[in-house]
């Protein structure tokens, strides 16, 4: 499998989905750990350079951007306070170090961050510049030596940037060495076997479900939650049965053990109450992920989703943003009856201030959930219970800790030229099956996976319709005022002359979902050959 290399000429060119703004925890526990313990990184996002062989302004290579630069460099300089010389000057440490602890896991490795300033040599003396380097190394407390930290590994990760006016360069407190807690407790079963590889369960999980890199949607969501919680200590989960029960659908399995009950909070059965609590926490600086056991239960909390979450950034004129994610299974399952089977994409999709996402494959689930958690706005993340167990092939870049899928862009799952089929969530699978059946009849269908209900990727839909001239929308929800209706209106408004035939909407039946299996099947779209009697 090809290693994806996003580094060219020393500069980083990431695909649109990546948001490479790693937190310190992510730098240490995702990128640097893997490099140190020779665990292959899924994608090359960070080049290897000896940062002291060049001057800081030369390190940017061809790229002009003012972004922070990240490099893997060797770690020898981390041990002592010596100055590191470059062609035109010298990097001097400003003396303080900061310890970065993985507040989540009980893993002994610890990150150490040093700050350095670049001084340029000018005739007789050296002058401080605005170039700053943060150098991260990994260390292990040695129990025999009184838990003194000893650096390990060959690599350090360096972040180099030019200090701008308002940016704060932290005056790291050397006292942070004596920081929190307890002797490092770790679970020997995780650690002993893997100590040679040294990496915690996260990296293993990313690879464990794979043979040739397939991943179930459940694992995708679990790994995304795990990595986001590990990368940012402000992210926490809240919902019914997310903790000790390991998740009503086992999505949050293992997270309670890793992050503790303060960060994986089991709530009483109080949707309105705990959703409001999540919103209040988001107002005040945390990043909650609120799970609804199914989105049907979100109706008890819909006041908070719409009125206190979606509208607040507007009502407060930008003072209070709400970086919250509401996630859970949406739509029909199998035989669960009318009150557990409704699809809420259309309801939430009509509300300004919300972002509404509906993943289909494992790559969608991982990328969209990471994008949602990192997003500063309220996001409704509509999963599907029947997709949880399905396996999808995943590309290498999907496994990277910074992988995000951009919100608002649809994906063309299958290119075609005769008709466009637009769907989201489980219906994408059905559409692909239908496309295969149509192919046998000589019809080449293009299938678009919306991924994002709000904002809707109108551009992609219109571009496709202009190519194929026919449109079919597929959804599980009720037909009136549904997502298909909006798509149809959009296409009629923007691409009317391109349509050769009226838009066809395929939606669920306009009835509350029945229980009996045969009529339940009739209540939702199915993919089958045209002559199949229902």
């Amino acid at each position: 499998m090809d290693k994806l290399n996003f580094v060219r000429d020393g500069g980083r060119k990431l695909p649109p989905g990546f948001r490479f703004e790693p937190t310190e925890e992510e730098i240490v526990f995702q990128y640097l750990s893997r490099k140190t313990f020779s665990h292959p990184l899924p994608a090359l996002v960070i080049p290897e350079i000896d940062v002291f062989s060049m001057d800081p302004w030369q390190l940017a290579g061809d790229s002009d951007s003012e972004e922070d630069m990240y490099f893997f460099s060797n770690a020898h300089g981390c041990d002592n306070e010596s100055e590191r010389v470059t062609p035109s000057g010298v990097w001097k440490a400003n003396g303080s170090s900061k310890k970065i602890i993985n507040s989540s896991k009980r893993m002994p490795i610890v990150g150490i961050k040093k700050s350095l300033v670049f001084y340029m040599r000018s005739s007789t003396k050296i002058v401080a510049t605005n170039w700053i380097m943060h150098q991260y190394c990994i260390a292990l407390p040695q129990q025999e030596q009184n838990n003194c930290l000893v650096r390990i590994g060959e690599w350090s990760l360096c972040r180099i940037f030019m200090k701008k006016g308002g940016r704060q360069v932290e005056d790291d407190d050397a006292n942070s060495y004596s920081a929190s807690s307890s002797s490092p407790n770790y679970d020997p079963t995780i650690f002993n076997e893997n100590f040679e590889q040294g990496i915690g369960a996260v990296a293993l999980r990313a690879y464990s479900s794979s043979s040739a890199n397939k991943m179930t949607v459940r694992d995708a969501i679990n790994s995304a939650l795990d990595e986001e919680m590990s990368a940012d200590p402000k992210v926490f989960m809240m919902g019914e049965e997310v903790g000790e029960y390991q998740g009503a659908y086992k999505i949050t399995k293992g997270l309670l053990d890793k992050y503790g009950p303060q960060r994986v909070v089991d709530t009483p059965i109080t949707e309105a109450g705990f959703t409001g609590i999540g919103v209040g926490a988001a107002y005040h600086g945390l990043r909650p992920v609120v799970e609804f056991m199914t989105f049907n239960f979100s109706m008890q909390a819909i006041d908070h989703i719409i009125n206190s979450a979606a509208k607040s950034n507007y009502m407060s004129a930008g003072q209070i943003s709400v970086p919250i994610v509401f996630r859970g299974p949406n739509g029909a399952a199998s035989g669960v009856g009318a009150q557990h089977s409704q699809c809420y994409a259309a309801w939430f999709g009509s509300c300004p201030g919300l972002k509404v996402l509906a993943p289909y494959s494992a790559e969608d689930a991982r990328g969209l959930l990471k994008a949602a958690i990192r997003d500063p706005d309220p996001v409704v993340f509509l999963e599907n219970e029947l997709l949880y167990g399905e396996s999808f092939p995943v590309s290498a870049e999907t496994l990277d800790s910074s992988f995000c899928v951009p919100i608002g862009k649809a994906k063309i799952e299958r290119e075609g030229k005769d008709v466009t089929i637009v769907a989201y969530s489980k219906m994408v699978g059905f559409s692909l099956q239908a496309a295969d059946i149509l192919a046998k009849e000589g019809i080449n269908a293009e299938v678009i996976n919306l991924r994002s209900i709000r904002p809707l990727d109108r551009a992609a839909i219109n571009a496709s319709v202009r190519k194929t001239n026919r449109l079919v929308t597929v959804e599980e929800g009720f037909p009136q005022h549904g997502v298909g209706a909006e798509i149809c209106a959009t296409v009629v408004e923007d691409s009317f002359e391109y349509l050769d035939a009226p838009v066809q909407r395929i939606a669920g039946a306009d009835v509350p979902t029945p229980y009996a299996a045969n009529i339940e099947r009739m209540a939702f779209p199915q993919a089958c050959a045209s002559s199949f009697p229902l």
Partner: protein
Amino acid sequence: MAKIIHNPLVLSSSRSAEKSESCCKLSGPTSFMSSKFLGNKLLSTNSATSPATRRSAAVVAVSSDVVKEKKLKSSSSLANLLITKEEGLVLYEDMILGRAFEDMCAQMYYRGKMFGFVHLYNGQEAVSTGFIKLLKQEDCVVSTYRDHVHALSKGVPARQVMSELFGKTTGCCRGQGGSMHMFSKEHNVLGGFAFIGEGIPVATGAAFTSKYKREVLKEDCDEVTLAFFGDGTCNNGQFFECLNMAALWKLPIVFVVENNLWAIGMSHLRSTSDPQIWKKGPAFGMPGVHVDGMDVLKVREVAQEAIGRARRGEGPTLVECETYRFRGHSLADPDELRDPAEKAHYATRDPITSLKKYLFENNLANEAELKAIDKKIDEIIEDSVEFADESPVPARNQLLENVFADPRGFGIGPDGKYRCEDPKFTQGTAQV
């Protein structure tokens, strides 16, 4: 004088005359009413009702007793004044600011400069001042639609609040929120909610954050949150859900009930099976305290105890402040259902006049100083009206601003780029 006001609640609604008689027979409302009987004297024993009735009723929560006993001790000695002169003047100024501001709002509304729903706080200033003046800037306040005075007490400048009410761009929410949605990140006013009961979980969430910061992020954080809401809200499900979770997780929050006996036109006694709201606290495992909300000093004492509890990490408290609003529910409410005798009775217990009296009697301030404060506040209010008048209305492009913190949420335009990057979009001339 005290005897005349005996059993004022009976007069409260001529319609429910029969009801009020039956109410008298219950042990609940009787002691409730007698609280006002005692509450009239500022210097006398504490805000809770006669110790006898309270003790028997409060068997359920030991901590309620503890709070009340403490208060009995502290206020029994006259020589031990409850406030210093500076504190007294601060309290006076804050209440006058609240009152003058709300009166000006009424004037402006009738002149057509303010519109929509405006809910005034006249008469309830003691609760806001008594509680909020004890907070630090980092502490949070969450309120309902009757939130102008909460915002002012917390420190939001009067100019910004007035501009917001006029719908000008210099308002605290740039004119986008309005009377019912006062937000201020700087002063930690987390809203201003139109739905009653909506603010309570949000406040509980802010308290949750405070505890999370302390225990998970290991920051030095002892922020407390106050949730203000009314008597009608106490019948709402979210209230009970949050009492449960706050007590379960020992969150640093104080639930302050501003019981003004009326929810628009619905009397508290007609809508509640057990009108004594403070009792609902012990049912969930937290102390429930009842205090005379027309007396700022008593409110302040109780507040000190409750906020102290929360700061020390001992958990939430439910404080029921018995208060009254002098005006109708909103400026559009003709206020016909309330008995004029009831209104008159409470008018005699105006918190501002009570505080004035206390200051004079204890030689903490003289007429001149208070008049100076009155004048100062008048000038502030005049200035804020002028400022709001002269401020510009929002520009066209403001319609689409602030919907998202990340404006890429408006999606991708026909040219394949994010729509927020299109200059016409930000100028407000693009099609949405």
